[in-house]
């Protein structure tokens, strides 16, 4: 009878020990995961703050060189005729597609911005900018 009890206790003990071990491993891994999320979040926040800081400096520099009104328009994401390509990149971001043609007088670029549709997996063009010799000439909202 004693041996029988020992066998039952042994099996029960092993099972409970296994469960306790799994519980501890789960807790440790969850803690590590939480720590990794916190770390990644902090790194992301720092990078975001650095980007904001740099953008302020950049807008300040643009204000010095081009004038404050243009700097303000860039920060608002507005375009104007004769806007330099680099400021367009800053104001509207990088185009999804750029087509270039060149003749003896000028280099013409058509920058097309698109929206990505997750359902269809396709880019739908929604904004087009025509640049001549690196300066904005016209822009069109595409439906």
């Amino acid at each position, binding site marked *: 009878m004693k041996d029988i009890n020992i066998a*039952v206790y042994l*099996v029960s003990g092993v*099972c409970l020990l296994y469960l306790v071990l799994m*519980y501890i*491993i789960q807790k440790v891994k969850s803690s590590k995961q939480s720590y990794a999320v916190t770390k990644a979040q902090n*790194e992301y926040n720092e990078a975001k703050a650095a980007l904001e800081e740099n953008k302020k400096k*950049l807008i300040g520099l643009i204000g010095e060189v081009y004038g404050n009104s243009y700097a303000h328009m860039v920060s608002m994401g507005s375009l104007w005729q004769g806007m*330099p*390509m680099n400021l367009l990149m800053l104001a509207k971001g990088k185009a999804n597609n750029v087509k270039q043609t060149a003749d003896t007088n000028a280099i013409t670029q058509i920058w097309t911005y698109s929206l990505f549709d997750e359902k269809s997996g396709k880019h739908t063009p929604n904004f087009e900018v025509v640049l001549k010799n690196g300066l904005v000439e016209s822009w069109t909202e595409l439906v």
Partner: protein
Amino acid sequence: MSFKNYYDILGIDSDADTAEIKEAFRVMTARYSSSTNKMDDFSQTMLKNLNEAVEVLANPEKRKAYDETRVLLDDSMRLSAVHQGIKPQDASRIAESILKHFEQEKRLKAKHESLLLVKNAPPAKHFTSVKVFLCLLVIGATTFYYHPDKFDFIKGTPEHEQRAYEWYTMDTTLIYAKPKTKSKVIHGVPAHTGFNGISETTFYIKITFTDANGKSREGFIKKKELEKNRTLIYPTP
């Protein structure tokens, strides 16, 4: 996609030959691979950039196309400066700052991606309800194997216990040979033992019982030591 200066990434001049490019790639790759936290995002990004740079610059055709784009970009920026009437050095400063801004934006995107990756990582599943259930099952099976008597409740109440008796003993009770106080005690039964009376006198009930030898015998129990089962429904005659 922002324009990357592969020459800067590799730390070489724009007129470096293929041997110099490969040597620079080897040195830079070793530097980022051997960093203490070599799998961090920054090192990974740098290694990706280095691979990208060597793939383009070590291939003469790709390098030619890349150099043309680089010149075109510089020209566009220069043209922008000329048409805006600003100094070339100012245009260059702005161009550099914008490229730096886009690099930072790209780094932010990478950080965001890694954050999402960590956030969306599947949770640890070491301690699950299935494991708990299986462990309990093993414990239960072992106990059942060694102590089946502990599982009698599963079988339910035995048939003889389900039978309703007319009388039940209230405490440990003596069974007498005759319905007299001074008669011989022939047996004893524990509390809550059920009997059906064969006949009854004023103070005694005649019952049958099984003695220590397993034989069925008759005896008498005092009525005052019995409790009548009032829930018993008697069949109508």
